[in-house]
């Protein structure tokens, strides 16, 4: 009962990266998780499913990121006593995921924080929407319940509640600061305001239409999520997409990364009192979005990735346009970067602000961009490349400082690298079709799709049900890993710096709330 168990009993899991699945009992669940943790694995995500109609059981799945592959542990949980061992001790990200699983499915981890997370009172606490016997159309009168925030006692400590509606045009969430003077002693987040019942909604869609919902889990990461969904579906169906499709998808993903990073770089300048940065970068972003519309039909590339292919092809003229645009963006970004780097006032605000130290990032299991700004060398395009990234050989950005300045630098580095990758993709675009048939899928099989989006790794775990129906679909955004790290990064900073620090993380609300 150890990692050997995985080696011996692990069954290959259909996915766009190497992945294995192994059924465990409760004792093995805990033991294997501990060994995986000791071996340096990270917990990618955790989800549950109601299979009582099939075998009288619930199931909990834990997906771990081990070097070079994904390992999914699967634990059956009795339908009449739905409790499973908590993974919170070794993997802090499990805490909120376990609370969410309870809110939606009514299966509980045996220890840890038991407060609701996604359920704010909109549905009764003894009703569980993701259970098969819960009718999706059920409307409950919303009753908002007071949420038991953790109180910080002490002389001169007071609380500042912020949200769910914020001053700027951003997503809803609530932040509760405990401060002395202006200094933050503690931040507690309350999320879930954008919960739209995505997982339940998937179950009403045909397999071949789920990508449209995946594209709308998190609008700024629409390419990443729709690719992850299509990759999971294609793996299940045994469909192979053409090299041209893979290249165009990667081009879309890199354009999404560039557009978001460029937008953030402008907003970060602005939040640090440098409106010039916002003007320049937002104009740059707008030009990219307009070219997206011209070439790909939609400004954010929404619904560009479809099962088996992409919605539209490019021709020699549009390839030329894109290549020329790349040259222009690169020239502008290099110039603006020099201005940012030399601007003393800006660097003064960036440096040292909102520091997430490498050691906390490691224990918290930080993901993606935030992790890479705090010394965590992990980028799925490099560590677990799926087509076409194996051939592209991308380089991962890495900074050790963990402050706002580091997150700014990682964005600059990644824009430059994405521009390079985009150019390679366009110059070496393989010939071929951009649509492939996606055959019928056997029911009761699970497929995974993982993609390194601009924030970090996203995953779609897709289970096929009755012919061409979705039985269960779990989506994971790296913001689950990274929201708790903001609580650490803000400690000791002053409240007026929070917008800048929060923006430097720029985590998802909708993508997290589901």
């Amino acid at each position, binding site marked *: 009962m150890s990692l050997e168990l995985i080696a011996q009993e692990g069954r290959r899991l259909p996915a766009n990266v190497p992945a294995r699945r192994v059924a465990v009992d409760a004792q093995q669940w805990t033991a294997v998780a501990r060994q995986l943790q000791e071996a340096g694995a990270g917990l990618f995500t955790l989800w549950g499913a109601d299979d009582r109609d099939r075998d009288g059981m619930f199931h909990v799945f834990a997906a771990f990121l081990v070097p070079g592959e994904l390992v999914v542990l699967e634990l059956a949980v009795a339908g009449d006593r739905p409790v499973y061992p908590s993974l919170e001790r070794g993997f802090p990200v499990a805490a909120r995921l376990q609370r969410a699983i309870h809110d939606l499915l009514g299966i509980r981890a045996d220890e840890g924080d038991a407060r609701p997370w996604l359920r704010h009172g909109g549905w009764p606490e003894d009703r569980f929407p993701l259970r098969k016997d819960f009718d999706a*159309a059920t409307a409950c009168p919303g009753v908002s319940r007071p949420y038991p925030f953790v109180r910080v006692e002490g002389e001169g400590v007071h609380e500042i509640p912020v949200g*769910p509606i914020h001053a700027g045009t951003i997503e809803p969430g609530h932040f509760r600061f405990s401060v002395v003077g202006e200094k933050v002693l503690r931040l507690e987040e309350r999320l879930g305001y954008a*919960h739209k019942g995505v997982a339940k909604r998937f179950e009403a869609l045909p397999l071949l239409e789920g990508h449209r919902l995946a594209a709308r889990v998190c609008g700024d990461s629409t390419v990443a999520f729709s690719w992850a969904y299509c990759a999971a579906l294609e793996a299940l169906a045994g469909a192979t997409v053409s090299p041209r499709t893979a290249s165009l998808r990667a081009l879309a993903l890199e354009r999404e990364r560039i557009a978001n990073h460029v937008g953030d770089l402008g907003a970060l300048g602005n939040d640090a009192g440098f409106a010039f940065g916002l003007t320049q970068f937002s104009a740059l972003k*707008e030009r990219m979005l307009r070219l997206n519309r011209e070439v790909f039909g939609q400004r954010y590339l929404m619904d560009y990735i479809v099962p088996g292919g992409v919605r539209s092809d490019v021709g020699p003229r549009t390839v030329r346009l894109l290549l020329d645009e790349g040259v222009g963006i690169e020239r502008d970004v290099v110039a603006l970067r020099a201005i940012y780097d030399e601007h003393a006032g800006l660097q003064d605000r960036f440096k040292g602000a909102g520091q997430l130290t490498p050691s906390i990032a490691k224990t918290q299991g930080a993901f993606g961009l935030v992790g890479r700004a705090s010394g965590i060398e992990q980028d799925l395009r490099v560590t677990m490349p799926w087509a076409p990234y194996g051939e592209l050989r991308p380089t991962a950005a890495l900074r050790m400082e963990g402050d706002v300045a580091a997150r700014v630098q990682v964005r600059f580095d990644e824009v430059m690298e994405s521009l390079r990758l985009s150019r390679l993709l366009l110059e070496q675009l393989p010939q071929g079709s951009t649509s492939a048939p996606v055959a019928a899928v056997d029911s009761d099989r699970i497929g995974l799709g993982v993609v390194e989006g601009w924030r970090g790794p996203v995953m779609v775990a897709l289970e096929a049900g009755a012919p061409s129906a979705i039985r269960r679909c779990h989506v994971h955004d790296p913001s689950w890993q990274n929201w708790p790290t903001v609580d650490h990064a803000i400690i000791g900073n002053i409240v007026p710096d929070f917008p800048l620090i929060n923006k430097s993380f720029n985590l998802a609300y909708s993508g997290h709330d589901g």
Partner: protein
Amino acid sequence: MLNIIKRIRRTGILSDAPPESDQPEARVRGIHEHLHRVFGRALRIRHVDAGSCNGCELEIQALTNPYYNLEGAGIAFVASPRHADILLVTGPVSVNMEEALKRAYDVMPEPRWVIAVGDCGACGGIFGTSYATRGRVGDVIPVSATVPGCPPEPMALLQCLLHITSHPGQP
């Protein structure tokens, strides 16, 4: 500093670029002028994300980039609904945001307008109504206009502002 000035000079004033008549820039300017004429003062907008996917937010944010230059046209995004003429609402109204949305609407001064943005705000979009969503904004608070699209492009948003402010007497 010299770098910055050079860049500003090179970038120019984008929303002012000499446009041909059918170019978006010309339409943008026409809308700006109209809003000024009708209101004679800055129009104030409060945005509420009532459970959007964040796609609509990206386009609302785009309105402030130099190409649409909303702020330059005397339209301001304000931090409180108490100071707003218009509530710009996105999302299929999540159950968890319903109360906050109603409260924001209640404290707005009259006359007030509500614009439901995006397919989600206009009709519930792909999320529809469920245990977690109430669907279109109009089922939660009174709506003056809708801007369909997923997400609607900035131009469509600008045109909607033009449309509802053309009838300022009838929110």
